[in-house]
């Protein structure tokens, strides 16, 4: 069992609590109850999406992703009623095509042209990426904003759509210049920066015709951030110290015969040590940063308001780490399955070669096996992402609640935002979590 929650729940009796009024009247304030209903059949969906990606050269991934979102959105319940994801695979596909043609293709073609025109030794190879990175940074900012806008306009509850009103350029600019300042502030701008960015995203968000308000100040985050900062410094110093205490510098000192090369066993030991220290240090840092992340999620939620009600999030660093470790293991399992499939598809070629049977007639077979194997490998990326996304969302939603009441009858449909395509940029830069 990949996920204990991934079992069909028995079809229960109608969920409607008997105490609820048969309908809300305008002005009446309701306490909103947020809950999570685990989607069923996610393992089967993972397998189906993989197979369909495989037989469509990967193009089905946009539709597969959409079905996953529909199932996950349906798992989020407010007053027992599901959120609806109304986006389509076609929109995601179009978004991808446009970004492909307008961003990825030109960047690749220009890089190619640079290397062909100026040659491999030219300084153009250094200058071009330097010019390219700021552009990519701004595009990531725009992509983040647009991805949230797309998802909100495609999120519906009780027929009322979400949305976003504001400027993606304003967000991207803030994202860009504040990132430029990060190195010179040794990272200490981070709490201020993330609060500022979250403020733009939250204040621009709409549910129906109503806006969210955001009142968080970065101040309270600085206590946890200094713990993260000094903790990371300590981890780095500890890692370097442990390494230097365990390394025999004399091994590398040149003697009268010139620089020495360490023995193979010694090299293996050193490499193992470096890996062990690196993994341990990374894990320690990960736990620490997850703890900080939980603090900032909860802080932001506690200062996000909607129509007089306030969100409350109770995620913990340990909880986030547990989710991430489970997700990591699921990903590893996906990679192993992908590689196993690749090996299985190439096995006939290896057998033919090893047996000396291969000849000109089998060259075609070899290319076919390589192509199909590579396709299987590509199609298997993100194999278990339906389960991974549901686990992550479940944790976040189960720790989310709304304090106070909301006058549901007063919330009307907002103005229609015409977006005919999905979050191409966010996909291109791999920044879409769900």
């Amino acid at each position, binding site marked *: 069992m990949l996920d204990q929650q991934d079992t*069909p729940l028995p*079809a*229960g009796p109608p*969920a*409607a609590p008997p105490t609820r009024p048969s*309908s*809300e*009247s*305008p002005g009446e304030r309701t306490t909103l109850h947020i809950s999570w209903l685990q989607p*069923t059949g996610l393992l089967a969906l993972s397998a189906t999406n993989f197979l*369909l990606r495989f*037989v*469509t*050269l990967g*193009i*089905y991934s946009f*539709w597969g992703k959409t*079905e996953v979102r529909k*199932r996950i*959105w*349906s798992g989020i319940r407010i*007053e027992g*009623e*599901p959120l*609806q*994801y*109304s986006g389509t695979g076609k929109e995601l596909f179009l978004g991808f095509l446009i970004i492909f043609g307008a961003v*990825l*293709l030109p*960047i*690749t073609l*220009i890089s*190619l042209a*640079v*290397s*062909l025109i100026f*040659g*491999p030794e030219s300084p153009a*190879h250094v200058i071009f990426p330097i010019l390219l990175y700021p552009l990519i940074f701004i595009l990531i900012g725009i992509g983040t904003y647009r991805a949230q806008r797309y998802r909100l306009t495609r999120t519906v509850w*009780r*027929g*009322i759509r979400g949305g976003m009103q504001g400027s993606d350029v304003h967000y991207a600019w803030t994202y860009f210049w504040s990132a430029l300042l990060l190195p010179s502030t040794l990272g200490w701008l981070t709490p201020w920066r993330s609060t500022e960015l979250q403020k733009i995203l939250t204040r621009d968000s709409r*549910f*129906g015709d109503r806006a969210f308000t955001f009142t968080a100040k970065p101040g309270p985050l600085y206590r946890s951030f200094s713990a993260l900062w000094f903790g990371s410094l300590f981890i780095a110093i500890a890692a370097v110290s442990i390494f230097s205490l365990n390394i025999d510098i004399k091994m590398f000192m040149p003697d009268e015969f010139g620089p020495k090369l360490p023995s193979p066993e010694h090299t293996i030991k050193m490499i193992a040590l470096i890996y062990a220290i690196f993994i341990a240090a990374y894990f320690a840092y990960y736990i620490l940063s997850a703890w900080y992340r939980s603090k900032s999620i909860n802080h932001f939620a506690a200062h996000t308001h909607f129509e007089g009600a306030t969100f409350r999030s109770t995620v913990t660093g340990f909880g986030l780490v547990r989710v991430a470790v489970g997700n990591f293991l699921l990903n590893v399992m996906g990679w192993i399955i992908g590689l196993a499939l690749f090996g299985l598809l190439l096995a006939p*070629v*290896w057998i033919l*070669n*090893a047996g*000396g049977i291969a000849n000109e007639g089998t060259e*075609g077979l*070899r*290319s076919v096996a390589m192509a199909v194997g590579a396709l299987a490998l*590509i199609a298997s990326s993100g194999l278990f992402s339906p389960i991974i996304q549901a686990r992550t969302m479940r944790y976040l939603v189960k720790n989310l609640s709304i304090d106070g009441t909301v006058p*549901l*009858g*007063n*919330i*009307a*449909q907002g103005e229609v935002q015409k977006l005919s395509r999905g979050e191409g940029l966010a996909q291109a830069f*791999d920044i879409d979590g769900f």
Partner: protein
Amino acid sequence: MASDPGSKAVFYGRYSDGKSAAASDAQLQLAPDGIAIKLAGHDVPMLWPYASLSSAEPLSEYAIDGLLSSTAAPGASLFATEGTFVRRLAGSAPHLTAKAQRWSNAKPWIAATALIAAIAVTISVFNLSPSHAIATMLPDKARAKLGSHAIASMTGERRTCDDAKGLAALNRLTEKLSKASGASAKFDITVIDWGLLNAFAVPGERIITTRKLIAKAESADEVAGVLAHEMGHGIELHAETGLVRAIGLSAAVELMLGGSGGTLANVGVALAALSYSREAERDADTHALRILKNAAISSKGLAAFFARMKKEELDVGGDSTRGVLDAVSTHPNTVERIAKIAAQTPYPAKPALSDGDWADLKGICGPAKPGMDEDGDGQNDGAEAPAPKKPPPSKDGPAAKKKPLQKLEKRDKAKSGRDI
């Protein structure tokens, strides 16, 4: 179901009109032509025809509840709170099931995949080469540019051999062969001070060969044979075709992975990693024989060179691995190549170069320095260095395409050259 026709059963749900976030209780029935929705305070039920329905998530047999909307009531949504209702609805509106939706979404792309597969099969069955078509369309300037980049990145820091007398001798040989080849442009041949035994055809009618090849050759006829073979690759645009293919493939991979073109930077590496098909090698051999004949140079030199390489291969690999080496090598079987040369009708031939010119060509890289490290591999190669240990028989992939010849050059990083 026999006693309960389904349409009579009453289910419960919550209805939102889409004008506000309020919801009200509703009674639902599966009527023959749609869902009948009865709201409190309304006498006449609304009807949402089955064909007009869409659901928030595809209906499944595990459904606990379902969220529906309809083009009959834009903006409105209906939350059916009972799994039984949803499962029965799937029978009346099969287009809402996961299976139907996935099939209709994937169908065009499965068809497109089948079409691409059919095109790929056609290309391979009829031996079409889109890369070759593009290569023939490249303007001469572009090919020349590609060639000079390739040479620059392949030779790196290595010196170009430029002994004046040697160059003059090489020039005489080149001119003779160029003329005999019937190619419109004259070939340009560069000898690199390099301990790798190889020769490469480079885009733009250029050929690179190495000090070691000249050193290993026992007569000018042998060098002429190898150069004629490379000219054959040049005439057929094999290097250009291979580069177009490599660039196309890596551009496709870069695009898929969202890369920035970094792996395309090194044209020389791409060229060195190329490996021609056996057919391409046969074509080059055919050209070589024609060129040699036109130039009145004996093709026995080429045969002798092949035979010596074959012998070295055996010395290195031994008989036991021969089958595997032949199977994985893209070069035609050496015996087959030698036989093809032997089958030529004899023609009057003169030596490719005079004895004096041949001696000059031998010295094109300057006087041989005994005991120098030719490959930069830390080994003292010497002029007739013992062959390094043979690598284990390769299994598959690019490594498998290496010719036996290169087994000699295992330690050289640029060992992947093909071409003789």
